[in-house]
């Protein structure tokens, strides 16, 4: 029996899957302490849905990165190849603390990127993913599985020029696991960009928060699906999500769809969603202090995205993101 299609409301996943995925023989580059083990040419994870079938199909370099138990060393940086997607499996062993950075400035036609992160008990991971792909389309899947009392702080900066879909999943499997997923997305031109960000509370007393912010200009279309799922038995758990889209042009289209599935009583859950235009009152206030309209707009937009990107502390990366925002807006005004 073929694997099922994943649930991607309002996103034409089938259409993207019809494209032939780019060959991806070059593995990601890994910069890390010697204590971290890196293996290439390993077997791909077992696909469980049609998207994963596509991601493992054809030629795809597979890299496994293992961060040993109780690691407290320097950040582990994964850099995608110039012309290839790929598959990465990151294993963080018990009690380790690590900052994980993943950067993709990859070009090509139809990119496939699949990253699986397994976080063992009591480990803490600060995960930053920076997607700046310039391919025509990109299909991205990232899944994090958390064991007991593991913590994940995850920020995704979605600044690609590609159309496509990104599926993010955090699975809170062990008791007391905690995850925050912040997503900041900029879409312009004729881009169609879809995010399906899922947070599943499986273990007891697990806490999962999703916070998605997107800014769109031109004729771009951005879809934020947030899926919060509390499984039966996950007593004392909390699942919250916020999905907000800011539209800067009359032709931009935004969708924010929160979905909550709750199969347990003793839990807290909530969601908020909005699709808005730039607030004229805010612009007026800023401009009444002498700021020119473009500066005022930039401040409002940066401020809006800040909620998704606040955890990014690297000044160089932040400057790059701000520059991309400014350039995108300048082009949109032209």
């Amino acid at each position, binding site marked *: 029996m073929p694997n099922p299609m994943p649930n991607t409301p309002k996103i034409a996943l089938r259409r993207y899957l019809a494209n032939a995925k780019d060959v991806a023989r070059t593995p990601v580059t890994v910069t890390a302490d010697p204590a971290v083990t890196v293996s290439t040419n390993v077997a791909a994870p077992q696909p469980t849905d049609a998207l994963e079938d596509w991601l493992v199909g054809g030629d795809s370099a597979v890299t496994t990165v293992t961060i040993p138990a109780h690691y407290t060393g320097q950040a582990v940086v994964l850099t995608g190849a110039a012309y290839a997607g790929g598959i990465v499996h990151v294993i963080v062993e018990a009690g380790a603390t690590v900052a994980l950075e993943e950067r993709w400035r990859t070009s090509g036609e139809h990119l496939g990127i699949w990253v699986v992160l397994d976080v063992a008990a009591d480990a803490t991971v600060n995960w930053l993913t920076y997607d700046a792909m310039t391919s025509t389309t990109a299909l991205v899947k990232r899944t994090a599985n958390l064991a007991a009392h593991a913590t994940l702080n995850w920020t995704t900066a979605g600044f690609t020029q590609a159309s496509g879909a990104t599926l993010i999943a955090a699975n809170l499997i062990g008791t007391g696991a905690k995850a925050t997923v912040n997503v900041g997305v900029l879409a312009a031109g004729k881009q169609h960009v879809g995010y399906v960000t899922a947070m599943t509370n499986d273990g007891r007393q697990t806490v999962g928060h999703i916070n998605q912010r997107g800014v769109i200009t031109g004729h771009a279309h951005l879809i934020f699906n947030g899926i919060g799922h509390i499984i039966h038995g996950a007593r004392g758990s909390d699942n919250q999500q916020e999905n907000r889209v800011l539209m800067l042009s009359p032709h931009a289209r935004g969708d924010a769809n929160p979905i909550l599935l709750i199969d347990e009583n003793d839990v807290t859950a909530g969601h908020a969603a909005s699709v808005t235009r730039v*607030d*004229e*009152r*805010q612009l*007026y*206030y*800023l*401009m*009444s*202090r*002498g*700021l*020119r*309209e473009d*500066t*005022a707009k930039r*401040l*409002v937009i*940066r*401020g*809006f*995205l*800040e*909620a998704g990107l606040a955890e990014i502390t690297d000044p160089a990366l932040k400057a790059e993101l701000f520059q991309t925002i400014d350039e995108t807006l300048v082009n949109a005004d032209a």
Partner: protein
Amino acid sequence: MTTLEITDLHVKVKAEPTHPEILRGVNLVVHTGEIHALMGPNGNGKSTLAETIMGNPAYEVTQGDIRIDGQSLLDMPVDARARLGLFLGMQYPAEIAGVTNAEFIRAAINARRADDDQVPIMQFLKELDATMATLEMPEDMADRYLNQGFSGGEKKRNEILQLMMIKPHFALLDEIDSGLDIDALRIVSKGVNSLRGPEFGSLIITHYQRLLDYIVPDFVHVMKDGEIIETGGADLAKELEKTGYEHLKGGVGNA
């Protein structure tokens, strides 16, 4: 000396073109070096006057003019008017998440300076610290998001912080005393008074004599039905405190 001159000003709300004019022929001259108080019953056009001078796009001037030193402001957008020296302390300041107070004030100061002459960051922070100390604002207010979650009184104090940092020629202060406790009223007044001088003029909209005990005005005007119906010195405000507005003449009446 700089002069702000309002002549025969008539104003409508753009979104409601069939409604009658809110301002119906306002005449007012404010020179730098002077403090003017504007009083009058609710809903009679005081905020509309301040917002129209500043250039709020919600309002449309149907007749008359607003000039600074003879130059008409009517075709200028709000940001150009601000750079020319106008400042409006708003009755309801906007909240902007993600933009810190300090970042915003620095941008406002830099907007008035050439690209190759931006204010040095250390100099800016030093002045910001000193001004916040004068206004007895906690240090973390600099790094908080602009007005986000500020209490009513904190927002008003923050308007005065911006005023003191920007140092405009003309400050239009719309009910800057509303929501302030007694101590805050004294502190905010001290801030405004520190700006008094030959290059600073102000139009202070208020309902209460209390503020004018601290910031003693040179002129007091009363607005009713979109017109200034009475002008006097500081004593006029004291008199109104006792008598109210009822006995003053007016147009169609306060609906």
